[in-house]
């Protein structure tokens, strides 16, 4: 089966994608409404926590990070697949990325925006977030430039702003299409400003190609560094369960894994909601699923490496913690994480499920649940069972305030993402045209060669 039909008229590609900006299915509004309601829950919880203090989240000593930092890592991880896969597949000339990379890049941007909120929320005193920022000591604040937490702030800022620029630059030709096809309304003015007067001249395309490629080259090492730095937040400490050499690649693999699973979920939703069946095709879904399966196996391998290095290492407390994870109060979640992360992906191994949309929807959601549990299982057990027995606290459980804010973050992400897809073309029109053009030319060439024989 072909990734995309080669006989789709270019004008039809414009029409279909532009229609998505004005005429989605009803499910769009339902999703948006539910997402806004979820955000409302989080806002309520945050106001309560802001006024009363972090204690309402059931934070205590030693449980200082809880769900907020676990969810922060989850969202940072989720952000990885979008830009990273878009950039890698762009460099590899894998043109099947073209219909799906735009929404994947948007996913990156909004995941990072969601992750950033958790840094502020977790502080409790949100107005003191500037202590986390790496600026020179003009105000006698003396930031500690040797702290991974400070690197993290800089890395996330760099990744967020670069991802936004990558998304925006890649969208300029499509914004010009929107400008040319909108009737006079706010949208026309909006797209006119954002498209910067793009006309598709040879000079513009020439510079566009080099710039897009350059940013893609920067983003690949950047994305790897961002999650390695997040891993350093843990690995550079002396805490049992965190001080592990394989943490950076383990985090990067986990990030790619959850991001790919999220791409599958959003692929299925957008395909239905915006009637993109012609562009987000089953063969492209199949390729994404296979890629996700491969990354799942890498993650599984690194997960076992982590267990093995603790098990065969000489740190008895870290080994005790591993046993505590498997048998203590966190055991159901730890086993669920391993099952969801390492066993469930085998469903994607079978060809018949690689294009089965209902099955893939459920599987992708389960994989992300597994990846969220992974982050929680990294953060919470270490706090509950550290080096000193008098600091052990195995009975702490996050309060409804923490759960409410975590729940709302999914609504926040969904709300931003759905609004983006309604305002901006979520399928890249010019790149789908390129894909159709090049494939039809290849087919013609092949036909000519076969005819000559």
């Amino acid at each position, binding site marked *: 089966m072909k990734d995309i039909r080669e006989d789709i008229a270019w004008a039809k590609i414009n029409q279909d994608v532009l229609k998505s900006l004005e005429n989605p299915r009803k499910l769009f509004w339902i999703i948006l409404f539910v997402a806004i309601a979820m955000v409302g829950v989080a806002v309520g919880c945050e106001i309560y926590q802001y006024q009363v203090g972090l204690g309402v989240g059931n934070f205590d000593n030693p449980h200082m990070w809880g769900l907020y930092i676990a969810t922060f890592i989850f969202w940072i991880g989720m952000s990885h697949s979008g830009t990273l896969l878009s950039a890698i597949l762009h460099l590899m000339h894998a043109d099947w990325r073209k219909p799906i990379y735009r929404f994947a890049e948007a996913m990156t941007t909004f995941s990072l925006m969601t992750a950033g909120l958790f840094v502020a929320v977790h502080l409790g005193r949100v107005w003191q977030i500037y202590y986390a920022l790496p600026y*020179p000591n003009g105000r006698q604040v003396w930031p500690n430039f040797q702290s991974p937490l400070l690197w993290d702030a800089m890395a996330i800022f*760099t990744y967020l702003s*670069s991802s936004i620029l990558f998304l925006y630059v890649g969208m300029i030709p499509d914004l010009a*299409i929107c400008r040319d096809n909108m009737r006079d309304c706010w949208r026309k003015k909006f797209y006119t400003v954002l498209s910067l*007067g793009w006309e598709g001249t040879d*000079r513009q395309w020439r510079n566009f190609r080099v710039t897009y490629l350059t940013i893609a080259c920067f983003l690949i090492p950047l994305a790897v560094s961002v999650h390695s730095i997040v891993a350093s937040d843990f690995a550079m400490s002396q805490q049992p369960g965190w001080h592990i050499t394989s943490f950076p690649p383990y985090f990067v693999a986990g990030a790619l894994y959850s991001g790919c699973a999220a791409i599958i979920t959003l692929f299925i939703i957008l395909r239905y909601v915006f009637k993109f069946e012609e562009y987000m095709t089953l063969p492209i879904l199949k390729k994404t699923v296979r890629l996700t399966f491969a990354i799942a196996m890498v993650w599984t391998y690194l997960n076992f490496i982590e267990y093995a290095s603790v098990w065969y290492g000489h740190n008895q407390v870290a080994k005790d913690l591993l046993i505590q994870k498997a048998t203590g109060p966190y055991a159901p979640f730890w086993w669920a994480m391993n099952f969801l992360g390492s066993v469930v992906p085998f469903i994607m191994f079978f060809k018949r499920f690689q294009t089965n949309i209902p099955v893939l929807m459920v599987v992708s959601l389960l994989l992300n649940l597994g990846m969220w549990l992974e982050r929680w299982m990294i953060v919470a057990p270490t706090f509950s069972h550290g080096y000193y027995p008098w600091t052990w606290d195995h009975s702490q459980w996050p309060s409804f305030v923490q759960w409410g804010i975590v729940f709302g973050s999914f609504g926040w992400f969904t709300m931003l993402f759905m609004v983006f897809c309604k305002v901006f073309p979520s399928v890249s029109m*010019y*790149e789908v045209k390129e894909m159709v053009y090049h494939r039809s030319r290849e087919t013609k060439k092949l036909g000519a060669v076969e005819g000559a024989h």
Partner: protein
Amino acid sequence: MSKRHLLALFSDFDEAEKVVRELRAVSIKGFDSGKDMIVKSPIEHPEVEEFLGEKPVHVQWFTLVGALTGGSLAFLLIAASQGNFFAQLKGGKPIVPFPPDFVLTYEMFILGGVYISVLGFLICAGLPARRSPLYSAKVSEDQIGVLVQSEEAASATLKAIFTKHGALEIQEETGK
């Protein structure tokens, strides 16, 4: 002498290519194919460069300058902050430790590279720009446009070439 703009629209690249090759080959008084011709297309098309002739791209120089400036600036700011704090006892550790400072230097190297590349793109591509004298929305849909600027005397010849190669539409406007 007043200049005249002509925009011819073609249904595919092959036709546009033939026109451009002919315009580059023939010598028309009042028309310089190197300066006065722009090809507009709905997709990025590497073949356009082939038939238009190689033209330089300078974005990568902006990238180099941006990345080096970003990295240097980061290291200088961090090292200056740390050096400024030398009164604090460091227990024999370096005042400016290179390995941890490398991380932020690396991040700023990328940040500078990306920001200045985008700035370079805007400058080199001439964006933001006003609409050119002739523009057709068909160019962002499925047609290839060849926009030429010439002296009035040359426009009849140019039109004849466009028509010969099956232009779908020819738009004309007097420029400055």
